[in-house]
C-alpha cells in the first residue's frame, strides 16, 4: 500500500488526517507531521525516519505550501530519496483522492490524479453552474 506523510505548519496536517477519518473512515499508513518547535534538522530527521521505516515502500509526501520550512525539509528529503513524490498545496479533496485511489491507481499515475482532483476542487461555487 502506498503510504503518505503530510507535513505542515501548525496543526493542519493532524487535522487533515483527523477530518479525512471522519469522511473516509479509518485508514492506516498516513502520518501527520508539524514543523512547530522543530529546527530544520529535527524536522528533516523526523521525516527521514518515517520514510526509512517504510523500508522502501512507496510514499507520497504532502506539504502545505512551497517556500516554507516544511517544504524545505521535503526538498532535502528528495535529495536523498528521489523515489519519494512530493506534492504541495495539500487540501482535503487531495487527501481523500489519495485515500480513494492509492490501492487502485498505478503509482506512476497517482500523483497526477491527486493533482487533478486538487485543481478541480478549487473553483468558484455558483449554484447555477454546478
Amino acid at each position: 500500500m502506498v503510504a503518505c506523510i503530510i507535513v505542515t505548519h501548525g496543526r493542519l496536517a493532524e487535522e487533515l488526517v483527523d477530518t479525512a477519518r471522519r469522511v473516509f473512515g479509518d485508514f492506516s499508513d498516513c502520518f501527520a507531521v508539524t514543523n512547530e518547535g522543530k529546527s530544520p534538522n529535527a524536522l528533516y530527521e523526523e521525516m527521514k525516519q518515517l520514510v526509512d521505516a517504510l523500508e522502501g515502500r512507496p510514499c507520497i509526501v504532502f506539504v502545505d505550501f512551497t517556500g516554507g520550512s516544511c517544504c524545505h525539509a521535503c526538498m532535502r528529503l528528495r535529495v536523498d530519496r528521489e523515489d519519494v513524490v512530493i506534492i504541495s498545496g495539500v487540501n482535503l479533496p487531495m487527501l481523500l483522492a489519495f485515500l480513494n485511489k492509492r490501492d487502485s491507481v498505478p503509482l506512476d499515475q497517482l500523483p497526477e490524479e491527486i493533482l487533478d482532483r486538487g485543481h478541480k476542487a478549487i473553483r468558484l461555487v455558483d449554484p447555477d453552474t454546478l
Partner: protein
Amino acid sequence: MTSLSLVRIDDRLIHGQVVLGWARVLKPDRIVVANDRVAKSDWERRLYTASVPPQLKASFLTLEETAAQIRSGAFKDESIVLLFESVADAHGVTEAGVHFDEINVGGLHYHEGARELLPFVYVSEDDRRLLKDLAGKGVKLIAQDIPGNPAINLVPLVVTGAASPSAGI
C-alpha cells in the same frame, strides 16, 4: 549606507515567517542570507531561492563577504533583510567590524545542550556568552517571531539564563 530593515537570527533562514510575515510588512528590496554553508552549496542556494517571492532579490554570501559588503556599502539605497542561522554567525560578522543596532532572535530551536528562553528561542552556553557580548557592544537584542507579536527584550533572559515566565504563551 546600507539600510538594514531587519537583522534576524533564525535557524530556518528563509521560510514562511520571513517571506510572508516580515517581508510583507517591511517590503525590503533584498534578502541577504549570510551563511558559509549555503553560500558554497549549489543545491542549498537553489532550495532557498525557491522560497523567495518574485519581487524580492536574494543574495547568498559567506560571513566574510557579508561583512565586507556591508562595510563597503554594497547594498547602498536598498532595504535589506539580513538572515543568520546562528548566534555565532551574527557575532562573527560584528567581530569583522559591522555594527548592528538591533538583532532579532526570531527562531532558534532546540539544539544539543540548549536551554529554553522562549518557546522559539533555545540557547546553548556558547550562544549566551556571545549574546551577552553583543549586548555589551550596544546591540539591542529582541525576540520576535512575526511582526504582529510583541518584541521581547532578550537581554534579561540571556543574562539570567532563565526561561521567561510568559514562555508558555
